[in-house]
């Protein structure tokens, strides 16, 4: 578990992540990487994952169970048709989960 706590002070890194998604790059600043490490390092129980509906085309949002053998939960009414859209949506959900506040930054790509 990360010691770092995401706060409003990390907002510039949220902006950077949005720009990096648009620029299609995986080379992030150390500050953004630290934010992503917190978000992506969350424990297995409840962890957001993509459920492939159609390979390379369509994804649902899922949450992992705690233990082996248990079913993966599907988040209702969420579907993505591109991976950047999915990354941004999950980033916003995690921002809210971790800071309690809405990020309130527009999505890249299709609305």
């Amino acid at each position, binding site marked *: 578990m990360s010691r770092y706590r995401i706060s409003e002070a990390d907002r510039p890194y949220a902006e950077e992540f949005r720009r990096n998604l648009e620029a299609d790059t995986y080379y992030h600043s150390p500050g953004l990487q630290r934010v992503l490490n917190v978000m992506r390092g969350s424990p297995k129980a409840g962890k957001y*994952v993509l459920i492939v509906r159609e390979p390379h085309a369509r994804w649902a949002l899922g949450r992992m*169970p705690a233990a*082996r053998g248990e079913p993966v939960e599907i988040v209702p009414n969420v579907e993505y048709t591109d*991976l950047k859209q999915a990354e941004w949506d999950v980033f916003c959900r995690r921002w809210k989960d971790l800071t309690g506040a809405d990020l309130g930054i527009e999505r890249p790509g299709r609305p």
Partner: protein
Amino acid sequence: MRILAYADRISVAPGESLAVKVSCDGLDRYDAELVRVIQGDTNPAGPGYREERIELDLGGPFAGRHQALRPGSAAIVEPFPSARLTDGLTLAVALWPTLPGAGRQTILAARDPDGGRGFELALDESGAPSFVLSDGREEVEVSTGRPLVAERWYCIAATVDPVSGVVRIGQRPKRHYSAVGDSGERDHRDLPSGGFVPSGQRLTIAARSGADGHLHGFFNGRIEAPRLLSGALPLAEALGSMDRPADPADPRLVAAWDFSRGIDTEGIADIAGSAHGRLVNLPTRGVTGRLWQEHMRDWRQHPEGYGAIHFHDDDLCDAGWETDFTVSLPELKSGVYAIRLFADGESYYVPFCLRAAGESRKRLCFLMPTASYLAYANNRIGIDVPETEIMCGRLMEMHAGDLFMQAHPELGLCFYDVHNDGSPVYYSSRSRPVVDMQPGWVGKLGGVGSNLWQFNADTHILGWLEHIGIAYDVVTDEDLHLHGATALEGYDVVITGSHPEYYSLAMFDGLRSWIEAGGRLIYMGGNGFYWRISFHRDRPDIIECRKSEDGIRAGSPGAGEYHSSLTGEYSGLWRRNGMAPNVLAGIGMVAQGFDESSPYWRTEASWSGKAAFAFEGIEADVVGDYGLSGRAAAGIEVDAVDHSLGTPPHTIVLASSRIHTQLYLMVPEDMLDPTPALSAVETEVIRSDMTFYDIDAGGAVFATGSIAWAGAMAWNGYDNDIAGITENVLRRFLDPDPF
């Protein structure tokens, strides 16, 4: 997945046969065909999925039936002289539980499967030792009421005196802290009126026999030196007896199993008589017991320190399925083939290598890294390990196969998993369905793009060979292990897979002596020749790896447990065995990262000189800024030159990668004094070196140092500079002229 299957072999020659074992879930019938695997990537940006159907009647359609997977390891003793316990019994055993309180777990049981007449020592639901006696109708249970603490050694004893009608149970920790409160004893008056001795002659350790004929109630943890005596000893004496080895001359001794004997076997020896037993599902041997001391390193030198067996409820070494049909392989060209089983829109592939027939060897050989496929068999890293998302730099995609694996942990584990009790997995087996070893399978660690891994990633190489039209044979790791250099004899050039990571001594020596005799190796991958593995002596379907000291690993073996139980070899990194990958390949692993790959920047040596043939006709300064594995040619797991580790001094570096993300970090074995500058953004150590070296006998090695290489070759329909470089090297290597 409603069809699962595996075969008895992974490498066959024409004329030999393959026994296929199939399980269907709700399918009455299925059919089967033989296909040659050509290109298994289904990414629309890739070169296109391709397999070739072979006209061969396999005898289908077949009747579908369900065959179960039953993980869990145990020992079975049969016949066991139960009748000698009629006048009372004393049972004593040492125990190191790992999951006390996680359900009822049997330590030792001699109970009839129907009705349960007999006795059983177990950990109850709370994790406290409990002794059960039953006459088949009436059951008496007495528990110490003191739950054991995980990963502490205890002696447990239970006695039954039919004269006084008293049953006693007691526990004593090896190291006593009164504040912990984990010692104690209980007794109970009243035995079942009909006795407590089973009518059958079967005794089980670490599980009990169920009425369904299968084992249940698996124990997690270590069991050592169980013994049974006739008559009820005083409890303190029974517990105290565990301080000494059982005395075979003691006339009261009915059976005493010494697990420090025959550690490299699947038998357990009774030193009192002939109640020897056999192990089921390969529990872990060669692990430290209650008598282990700090100077002990190797169970062969100090067997007395290794008297324990570590049982797991998720061990699975052989699914033991019945054969559904047998395929006799005709005279076909050598290649990677698969039995495709299909019904009702469902399809399952059982891949295997068809070797060349007899003397008809071609000049080029693809060395199919089946040991590495096994090391990653049914790999759960992207499912079980939440941090994998950090390492991949993006969300985990769960395909139908991943959801199936999440739902079905009984498929068994591999070297990247930990057991349910958190202990590292030392064994992997192919005698079970290996669902992620199929064409079409999408992996987790294959980088942005196609995201292929091991078997399916290697089909980028097979597809390329098909594309350039150079004939090749296929030989597996298993063949190299069993036959050494002889397996490669007659081949002028060998191409590896994308990730030939796991090598036995016979494989390492075999490949090296083939090069020394003039063989030319194209190492088309990364992280190669990294871990030392041991094959089971009699069963090449089972391998072992203990990731001692360091390296990138899912868990660390305990102190004193660095030697393979199958052979006694010192397991771990080849580098820690004095044979770093650099000695063979010229380069060795420096980092991993599973998002973006990097192109290569050429050096002067690529433009002119001895090895410039590799770049003939290549104009660009920077090559490989494209690909299906991380969108460039150098990445995923990367290798570089290190002369201190044995890179031959005259090794030529033709090109190197430079831009890797900060997910790429220095490997632990390179990290001495950690500093905050160990990511690829800051340290030059992290790179792929594309290298060449040759030796006087004419042998040579060309190395790419990148798992992503094959994915770049497959870019743009195999028409690109990376494929061009590889073809240049291959054609030059096939030319017998010295370099």
